[in-house]
């Protein structure tokens, strides 16, 4: 049994320690908001927070996160999370929506760093094949501005 803490809840799971966290979330805990896009740490669809840091959990094993604080899209309910989700809705960001939970998790982690500008938004690695980036930018910018961490230009 491996015990992990996800969204402030403790779970005991009976899996091999090398099983990636993504598949533990999806298959054992049925937290389906975290998506699979590539399995190689490239696309960001599987982004979660581990101790507040963004991680692509398709390439992190369950063994590596024992005892650490994991947050998924389902548990992102702090002020930053709320603001981001509202902005995402406000700007009708999702098309197919598949990339969006991962994108929001990356954006939240960026905002937690307390310093957001155009450059740092451009560094987010997430892939949206539907091409919603223009709206993603706007939603992050607006949220960063609302929570007082926008350091870029005001157009």
């Amino acid at each position, binding site marked *: 049994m491996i015990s992990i803490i996800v969204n402030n809840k403790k779970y005991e799971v009976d899996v091999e320690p090398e099983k990636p966290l993504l598949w533990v979330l999806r298959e054992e805990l049925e937290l389906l908001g975290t998506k699979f896009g590539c399995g190689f740490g490239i696309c960001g669809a599987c982004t979660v927070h581990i101790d507040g840091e963004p991680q692509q959990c398709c390439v992190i094993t369950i063994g590596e996160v024992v005892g650490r604080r994991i947050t998924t899209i*389902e548990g992102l309910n702090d002020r930053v999370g709320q603001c981001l989700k509202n902005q995402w809705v406000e700007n009708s960001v999702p098309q*197919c929506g598949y990339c*969006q939970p991962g994108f929001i998790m990356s954006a939240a982690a960026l905002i937690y760093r307390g310093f957001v500008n155009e450059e740092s*938004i451009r560094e987010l690695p997430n892939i949206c*094949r539907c091409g919603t980036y223009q709206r993603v930018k706007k939603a992050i910018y607006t949220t960063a501005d609302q929570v007082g961490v926008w350091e870029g230009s005001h157009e």
Partner: protein
Amino acid sequence: MNNPILGERFLSRAEVAKLSNCVNNRELDGSAYHIRRREFIKHSTGVIAGLTLGFNIGIDRVQAAAIDASPVINPFNAWLVITPDNRIAINVSKTEMGQKVGTSFAVIIAEELEADWEKVDINFKPEMPPFIHRNTQLQRLTYGSTSVSTWYAYCRELGATAKSLLMTAAANRWQVSESSLIVYQSHIYHLPSWRCISFGALVEDASQLPLPASVSLKKSNSFRYLGKSVPHKDVRRKVLGEEIYGIDMRLPNLRFAAVKQCPFVDGRVVNFDALLSYVPEGQTLVSIPNGVIVTASSWWSAQKTLDELPIEYDVDDDAASFNSNLVSQILAQGLNEEGQQLFNKGDVTAAFNNADTTLEAIYEVPFLAHAPLEPMSCTAHVTDSKCRVWMAQQGPEEAALALSHELGMAIEQIEINMLSCGGSFGRRVETDFVIQAALASKATGHPVNLLWSRPQDTQQDWFRPAFAAKMRAGITSGLLEALTGINCGQNLLQTRGNPVPFDILASEGFANLPYNIPNQNIRNNSVQLPVTIGFWRSVGHSHNAFFVESFMDEIAHQANYDPYEYRRYLLASKPRELAVLDKVAKMACWKRYHRPGYGLGMAFMEGFGSIVATVAEVSVDSESVQVHQLWCAVDCGQVIHQDGATAQIEGALIFGLSACLFGEITFREGQVEQSTYKDYPVITLKNMPTLHIQFMKNTHAPGGLGEAGTPGVAPAVVNAIFSVTGQRIRKLPLSRYLTVNKE
């Protein structure tokens, strides 16, 4: 109205005053046009409570002779259900892939119905029995940007018919004339008597009434929803991570399946039996025609087993040596052959003889993958008597037919359930992954959720075909007098055993140019290649716009004209087209544009019932190119949902840009060389240009929007590069020649 009352009531003085103000009676007199009802059907007995309307558009039971098309309401043809609790369910027959087809249909119906958008629920048709439309136009397959353009009139009439029934019911109840009623926000009002009643309170009466002989449609100047942006119903669900995609289906005793298909363009597994011993306890190996599937209690375990299987393939020498150089050679040879005539006008030979300048250019584009973010995935549960699937796929009818054929089951035994797609772009027209899920379930006896790895998704795609074209122009005194073009590639419909007289898809945007060119000869030459090809967002237009619009730019420069002015001259007799072209030129400040090291390029196309003009701004320095901005003007007729339409163009532009900059599937020793987004890159925030999109305002019949934005990007970018460097790029992608990055 502050208190949401469901039934009938009297209005307050304030409400009457407010309604008299806010509801313009004249706009509701409905005199716009009367139409005869189509094959509507109405249902009033117990199956679905409330007022239920649908279409009886001549459905067949698959494989059966045409049955008596009696007006039966089943979940399939119940499009609109208004229930006593005053909610409106709109059941959409198409596949949701991010294009918001649900919103579009619902907005059109809600408009004519005068529905309160808050009370509308959008459902994607659940548990569809396998019916197939006789009229292929009205089939459920979601393809070719046709959903809205095909169903616009039907949806309007449906909403108007429901409204008419409700009004008659209200008029009967109050013993007043229908013309004295006002319908607004899911309620019907009779202001002279201060009365108000909800749709819900009328459904029982309305469902007893006969269908009206004709209905009136609203005038476009009184639209409340069409052309505006009501909130999408799916957005919050998607933001919260609650949307259910193909990958997310869960059932009791579910097994997870991973698949490995033969990596060669042609070949098969030869050592299946020997592989069995490598499969751990608790997992199952399943043989499929082009590979193997492993099922396990976890997808990750199944994939791990697959990765370690020493699979051997039987591959012949041709397949084992197939490569991309060979493709280029075959296409180049094909351009020198006669091919088949697609279009002819005037006398090109004479016109070329009289031309004072001639110009020739050869272009080539590669195979492309769709690369949706959600890899192919499907859940199936096959028992002796039934096959149930839950799929994110575009064509339930095709899937049902394919399953019935593959499993040897009657079509009545197949049940199809639709889930959201994590992107598609034409990929999910295919049924390969659906069949695989069913075979895995049949072999194991369990429900199976099958998911492709990213490399499988990339390498086993149904690619946009590689294409080449040779274009020739004859210019006399600066005027384009003659144009010949031949394009060459695989014939997509023919590769599917569809006996087409010519390559219809290769002619899109090639044989029917919007320009006025007096002498033209346009041809196609189909070649055979061992590559599986498919429908890729904008299909034939995706390469033809690159050929034609790059060449237009070359011609304009050769004739010493500004490419924008040159297109104006060629479109002179077409006001709608000219307006779009002028619009984009204005948006980009084309005429006054001057920025050292930067340049603009333009492209124009017509397709899917829409007209699109695109301008790209690029900068090029020391072999590296950067796309800064894209401007796009669109005439798609009546816009259904403004925000949704803009999103479709945003997405289509980025899709086209990814292909233009990086998109390339290549073959080496018979295998695809790319496998993930690392070697098949797409646009990310890093190289994301600023997009400017505007729509023409008019009320022409709506055109398709999902694809029309894609084709113009590559020629606009390539033409912009020429304007900066004088270098003409005729083969995509750009990453072959230039560093493509923002830094």
